[in-house]
């Protein structure tokens, strides 16, 4: 009788341990509304700034600096989230000044001082899609309220 009681408790303990272990093993950070909102908002800001690249970079440097400051803030926020390596790699690719998405575009604008309208229009489509990839990954993440043991 006493033996059966102990076995039952041991099994309950094992099950609880397994559940806690499973929750602790999530490999990707949970959904963050702030990141999602900032990403979609920065997409609009970035595309608006890109539109200005038909004019001289020097005359728009304040606008570019303001955008870069906002991007640095979200990047720092993302960098400090645990289990967030893939989102951070996405931001790295988007912002790399030696790459060809937003960071590379801004660098090219600075170097060449002005860019052609058709090129800007085509580049904007790709940069917009790049922001969508970041927002898409974020919106696919599990919401904290959906995690079993937090209910």
């Amino acid at each position: 009788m006493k033996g059966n009681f102990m076995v039952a408790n041991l099994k309950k303990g094992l099950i609880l341990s397994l559940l806690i272990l499973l929750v602790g093993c999530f490999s990707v950070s949970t959904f963050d509304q702030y990141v999602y909102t900032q990403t979609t908002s920065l997409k609009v800001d970035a595309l608006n700034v890109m539109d200005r690249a038909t004019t001289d970079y020097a005359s728009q440097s304040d606008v570019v600096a303001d955008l870069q400051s906002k991007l640095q803030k979200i990047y720092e926020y993302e960098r400090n989230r645990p289990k967030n390596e893939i989102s951070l790699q996405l931001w790295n690719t988007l912002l790399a000044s030696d790459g060809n998405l937003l960071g590379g575009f801004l660098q090219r604008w600075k170097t060449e001082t002005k860019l052609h309208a058709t090129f800007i229009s085509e580049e904007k489509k790709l940069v917009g899609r790049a922001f969508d990839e970041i927002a898409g990954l974020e919106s696919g993440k599990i919401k904290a309220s959906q995690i079993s043991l937090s209910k």
Partner: protein
Amino acid sequence: MATNDYTAILNELKGEITNMVVSSASAYADAAKHDAQALLSDMDANLQTWTQQLATGEISAQDLAFLVKTQKDLMKMQALKQAGLSAIAVDKLKNDVINVITSTIIGKI
């Protein structure tokens, strides 16, 4: 709880969890395939557009080279996102398994 009860619970869990794994893997594979097809279709359309724009002088050869590299960076991002979504699908599966285990066992203990 008797041993027979545990066997019944384990069998019930085994069935439910197997179904969850199969449907989760299938849903993810369909979504990934759809994304890959859309990506290839976009790339094809973009290359046609840019080649025409180069021919009419709307963009320069440097612009075209830059856009092709941008497309490549975007493809890298899409692959990264798929890797992330794949990991999230596994996390969601774990979460669903936990839900099934807790609701099945807690209800019977």
